């Protein structure tokens, strides 16, 4: 493991030994981990440097996010529900709260190299996306978050492809701007349900957004309306994943597939990732998080 990742894991273990122990167990088994983790952390470190910060800030944010996830997980096991169920509630609690958004976005980008399922989903996107990019002229990412996926898409897409990023949070857009550091991306602060463009897109990416809305079917239909007939979308969303801003609970992967089909899409490539060492059936039974990703047309 690189010096950089060794430092990150050692600091996490010092500050949260229980979590450090879990990370050491899961990360040691990942293929090509060192090279990919370094690529992501180098990108993120460049952003921190511009902000006059060090990786210690990212570690601190990540651990705050872990505290939130731990508390939300306890509540979820006790009640079988997420703690918030309306968009209005999480908009006030999270998206409209710059202090929380700040550590949440930094924590999430760190999770790309610290959570096995986020690491795999990142690789799935980077490795499968090129199959669909040949004729892409217009690319849209909805809920760009920290900007890592847009930055990778920009690297893979044809050089003349126009790139739009729509997000409801100014904090997310600010972070994505800093991470991407290119004037090629058009940043749009907007509610995607109300977002209308004259021209449609060849490709739409929407990573981990469906669980943040009250009406995921409506959102999938909105994507369908934003896509050209030949267009493709890349969607990810988790099942049983308590978090401070998750409101729509998918109980299993089939519920997600059913919704995708109901919105008029076909699934072309998909990946189901249990977050722990267990099968999909065990994860459903024990209500443990699974992350689902699909390229759909």
């Amino acid at each position, binding site marked *: 493991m690189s010096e950089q990742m060794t430092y990150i894991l050692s600091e996490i273990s010092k500050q949260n030994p*229980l979590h450090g122990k879990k990370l050491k167990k899961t990360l040691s088994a990942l293929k090509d981990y060192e090279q990919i983790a370094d690529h992501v952390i180098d990108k993120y470190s460049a952003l921190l440097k511009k902000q006059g910060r060090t990786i210690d800030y990212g570690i601190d944010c990540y651990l705050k996010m872990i*505290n*939130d996830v731990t508390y939300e997980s306890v509540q979820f096991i*006790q009640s079988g529900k997420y703690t918030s169920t309306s968009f209005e509630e999480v908009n006030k609690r999270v998206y409209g709260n710059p202090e929380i958004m700040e550590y949440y976005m930094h924590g999430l980008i760190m999770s790309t190299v610290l959570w096995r399922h986020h690491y795999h989903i990142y690789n799935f996107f980077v490795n499968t996306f090129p199959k669909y990019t040949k004729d892409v002229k217009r690319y849209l990412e909805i809920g760009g978050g920290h900007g890592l996926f847009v930055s990778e898409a920009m690297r893979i897409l044809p050089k003349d492809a126009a790139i739009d990023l729509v997000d409801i949070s100014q904090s997310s857009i600010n972070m994505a701007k800093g991470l991407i550091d290119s004037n090629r991306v058009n940043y749009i602060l907007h509610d995607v349900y109300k977002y209308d463009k004259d021209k449609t897109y060849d490709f739409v990416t929407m990573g981990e957004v469906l669980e943040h809305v009250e009406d995921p079917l409506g959102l999938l239909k909105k994507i369908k309306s934003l896509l050209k007939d030949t267009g493709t979308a890349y969607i990810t969303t988790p099942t049983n994943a308590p978090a401070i801003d998750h409101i729509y609970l998918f109980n299993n992967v089939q519920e997600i597939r059913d919704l995708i089909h109901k919105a008029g899409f076909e699934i072309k490539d998909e990946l189901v990732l249990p977050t722990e060492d267990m099968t999909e059936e065990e994860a459903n039974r024990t209500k443990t998080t699974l992350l689902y990703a699909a390229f759909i047309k």
Partner: protein
Amino acid sequence: MNQNEILAECNKIFIDQLDNPSIVLKRETTAADIDEWDSLNHIQIIVAIEKRFKIRFTSSEIQNFKSVGDMCDAIAKKVTA
């Protein structure tokens, strides 16, 4: 319920959740002393403690659990309140 009784109940919960009958908890016990105790089964342990003692921890209480003694103190405050 006194501290020794709370510790004994927690010991039963740890044995059950971590599936290790040889666990003997002390107040000073930390994650470093029990191999199987990590952040994933820590959540299950907290849930089991909350059910057993019919209490609910706050987010900041959970964050401050650094040892078994911290957990026992938080339980004691709630069951005697």
